[in-house]
């Protein structure tokens, strides 16, 4: 592990700092240390340091800056620190920490840079490091893009090791026993005679000495925690109703609020008349807010009832009136003028498509809501000298800055308290609810106000997954796929999303082709073109972002050509694939599913492969065509993540990703009529329920040296594998999501 240690020392400057009653270990950011978010909370005399480990008389705290919205990342981050620190997870407190530019997400920038994840060449690495500087500049403490595992894998372990070695040095100075003779276990330094010195007792002394920064990380063969199934730190609280999500938090003297937003997405409400609402029981105030009106009351239900009683005129949506218009805008984008990127262009696709027998197909993917089960909420309290925000968010830094702008308060006086999230799937990369809660709180200055969206507001005003369309042309020859020309048209998610935060995003948006252009196949004539459609309804990152639609497009297009060639879907994919770690995922699912064996009558098996977020993922879906519709029987998944940090959580996340991908492909879409979402609640946006859930068999592969996250990669292949399986079982090729527009499901 020497190499890892060297890289780490070069990249990060690690240090320690005295805190009240103890010591904290963490990183100084290079070039200019970012301001320490904990300084004010810690009192005077402290220096700037981004903490990951804090040991004081209050106990041992591991600071886990990546937010947890259900993916178990608090536990994973804590385990990475604890592995080196030699503490048990039961001994520590896990704290997400305050928002800080220092907790920037290095891994996110890797995926933003235009190089394939399989490309480790010099150019790729250097562009990634440019992006890295940019990310630091923006201070993006963002949770997303399945980046928490790669981001923390080194940093957190090193922080743990430095803390451990420094505590040993302190123990050595205190006892005179040589460091080499000291060991650590269970949050204590052990002397050769068995005496145990707790970290907590050693902490004040450790704060006074130079930290030991020359550390080498432990060999994986000695790991106690990493690679072992872990109990999540919050599992008992989540199973006993004790876990406090943002929506549950209470602040003394808090009022409750609801909003009624202009039903037409993006339109401004007018002629607001809150006179009836203000007469209703418990109502404190009716306040216009961004995009609509809010009602402050003494109880959420009363606020929601009153919000429904507000009279107003609906402002028109600036977006196309009918879905036909949305689709027309995409159809019109398959033109040379709208080319956004053509990162993949091998062979002579155009020439090959002249005069040959050309197979063509068109695919569609609809807008989709995120609809995490916890609706968005935020508590805001505006006081003379500070603003506090309590909310579940993936973008605490943006929240802080936007609240500062709205209130005119200095940014350091805006305190964001991040809570566990009841799901997100990208939903909490937006902060409209915080802005509206701030406006409400400003209207009753001094009082904390909790704004809770109704499910209807949450779904109808979601910034959805992108609408997308693809056109495939291809040829086959001698039983092989010879040409694949795939064009994908969609509006830019990144432009829409970053635009709401005031950041212009120049240049091509690779999310338009993500999950398609970087697939590790060698096809003689192979072209993937991204077409930039005009911005339509507002869109945002939805679990696996561009790949959520493009994985379906690319893999189904390939599957169609393989069938046209008369080849076996598994063998032909393997033949075309050049990337070894990716091949192994396909080989794994072939073995797991006993590919090629007879499934019996009315059954079918489909395979799909999509690399997204650097994770090659293969899935096989088995279905039965019953008289009442398609039943999904079984799914096999293999994914290459370099290192499975927690096999249990890995298994859970992969299954969740498959359920997510299949469920939305089966029966979900958001459609707009005159800008108003037609789907208002789960009755019309159901996704998968328990009875429809297939048995899912999961295998994590560790053939690559890159550590990758698993939150998103299982999603893109799921829809494709299902469509391919339905084709195998029925002969019906489904090219449009949701599939239930074309076929029934049991």
């Amino acid at each position, binding site marked *: 592990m020497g190499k890892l240690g060297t890289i780490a020392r070069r990249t990060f400057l690690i240090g320690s700092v005295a805190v009240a009653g103890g010591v904290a270990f963490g990183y100084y950011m290079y070039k200019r240390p970012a301001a320490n978010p904990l300084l004010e909370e810690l009192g005077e005399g402290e220096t700037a340091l981004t903490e990951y480990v804090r040991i004081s008389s209050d106990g041992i705290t591991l600071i886990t800056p990546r937010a947890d*919205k*259900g*993916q*178990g990342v608090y536990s994973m981050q804590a385990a990475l620190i604890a592995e080196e620190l030699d503490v048990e997870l039961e001994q520590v407190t896990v704290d997400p920490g305050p928002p800080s530019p220092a907790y920037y997400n290095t891994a996110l920038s890797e995926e933003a840079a235009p190089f394939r994840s399989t490309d480790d060449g010099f150019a790729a690495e250097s562009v990634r490091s440019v992006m890295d500087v940019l990310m630091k500049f923006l201070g993006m403490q963002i949770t997303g893009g399945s980046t928490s595992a790669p981001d923390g894998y080194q940093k957190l372990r090193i922080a743990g090791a430095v803390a451990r070695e420094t505590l040993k040095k302190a123990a050595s100075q205190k006892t005179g026993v040589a460091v080499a003779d000291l060991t650590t276990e269970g949050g204590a330094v052990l002397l050769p005679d068995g005496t145990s010195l707790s970290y907590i007792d050693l902490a004040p002394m450790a704060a006074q000495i130079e930290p030991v920064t020359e550390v080498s990380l432990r060999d994986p063969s000695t790991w106690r925690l990493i690679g072992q199934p872990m*109990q*999540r730190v*919050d*599992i*008992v*609280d*989540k*199973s*006993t*109703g*004790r876990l*406090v*999500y943002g*929506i549950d938090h*209470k602040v003394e003297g808090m009022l*409750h609020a609801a909003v009624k937003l202009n039903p037409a997405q993006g339109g401004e409400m007018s002629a607001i008349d809150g006179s009836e609402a203000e007469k209703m*029981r418990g109502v404190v105030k009716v306040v216009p807010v961004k995009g609509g009106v809010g009602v402050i009351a003494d*109880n*959420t*239900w*009363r606020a929601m009832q009153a919000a429904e009683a507000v009279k107003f005129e609906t402002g028109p949506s600036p977006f196309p009136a009918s879905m036909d218009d949305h689709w027309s805008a995409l159809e019109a984008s398959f033109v040379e003028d709208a080319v956004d990127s053509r990162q993949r262009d091998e062979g002579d696709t155009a020439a090959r498509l002249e005069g040959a027998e050309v197979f063509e197909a068109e695919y569609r993917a609809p807008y989709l809501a995120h609809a*995490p*089960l*916890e*609706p968005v909420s935020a508590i805001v309290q505006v006081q003379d000298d500070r603003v506090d925000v309590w909310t579940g968010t993936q973008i605490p830094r943006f929240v802080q800055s936007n609240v500062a702008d709205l209130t005119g308060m200095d940014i350091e006086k805006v305190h964001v308290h991040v809570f*566990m*999230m*009841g*799901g*997100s*799937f990208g939903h909490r990369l937006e902060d409209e609810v915080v802005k509206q809660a701030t406006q409400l709180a400003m209207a009753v200055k001094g009082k904390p106000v909790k704004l*809770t969206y*109704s*499910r209807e507001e949450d779904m109808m005003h979601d910034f959805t997954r992108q609408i997308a369309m693809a056109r495939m042309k291809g040829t086959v020859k001698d039983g092989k796929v010879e040409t694949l020309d795939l064009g994908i048209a969609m509006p830019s998610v990144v432009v829409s999303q970053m635009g709401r935060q005031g950041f212009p995003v120049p240049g091509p948006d690779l999310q338009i082709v993500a999950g398609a252009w970087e697939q590790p196949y060698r096809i003689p004539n192979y072209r993937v073109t991204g077409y930039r459609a005009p911005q339509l309804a507002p869109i945002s990152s939805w679990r696996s972002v561009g790949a959520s639609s493009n994985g379906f497009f690319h893999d189904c297009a390939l599957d169609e050509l393989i069938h046209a060639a008369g080849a076996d879907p598994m063998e032909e994919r393997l033949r075309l694939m050049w990337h070894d770690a990716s091949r192994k995922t396909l080989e794994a699912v072939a073995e797991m599913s006993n590919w090629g064996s007879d499934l019996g009558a009315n059954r079918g098996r489909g395979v799909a492969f999509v690399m997204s977020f650097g994770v090659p993922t293969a899935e096989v879906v088995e279905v039965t065509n019953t008289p009442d519709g398609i039943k999904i029987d079984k799914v096999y998944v293999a994914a290459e993540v370099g290192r499975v940090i927690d096999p249990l*959580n890995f298994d*859970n*996340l992969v*299954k*969740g*990703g*498959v*359920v*997510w991908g299949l*469920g939305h492909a089966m029966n979900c879409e958001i459609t707009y009529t005159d800008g108003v979402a037609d789907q208002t*609640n*789960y*009755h019309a946006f*159901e*996704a*998968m*329920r*328990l*009875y429809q*859930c297939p*048995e*899912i068999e999961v295998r994590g592969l560790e053939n690559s040296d890159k550590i990758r996250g698993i939150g998103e990669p299982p999603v893109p292949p799921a829809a494709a594998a299902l469509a391919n399986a339905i084709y195998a079982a029925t002969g019906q090729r489904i090219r449009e999501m949701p599939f239930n527009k074309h076929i029934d499901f049991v």
Partner: protein
Amino acid sequence: MKLSVNGKSHDVDVENDMPLLWVLRDELGITGVKYGCGIAQCGACTVHIDGQAVRSCQIAAGEVEDAEITTIEGLGQPEALHAVQSAWIEHQVAQCGYCQSGQIMQAASFLQLNDEPTDEDIDFAMSANLCRCGTYPRIREAVKTAAKTLRGA
């Protein structure tokens, strides 16, 4: 009105038609019961009324004055877990965890009626509780484990 929640009597001053969900959450501060949809589509707000699972977003406070209301907090505590909660922990069911209070309350009520459920029974009983994270495979396993424990008890 008086409400009896988790064995404790509370005086609340609310409209008769306020859904029990919001009385519990906003008036009594009992937040293990979750708001997810408000229309009986998700099951996150499930409580027991006299031992039977009920969606607390659907039942009005005025309807349950004489009833015994149990929320997840009253089902079992970390130091004295209900068999369903133990099974949920053993199988590490939760991801985000937001639906799990309702899932657990539904499962506990179901197993009280039928402690020898077949796989099909479990599908029938648990499909009205929505989980957006997709923990369904683990929910199935945990219900089976809990049933076994309850039969043995």
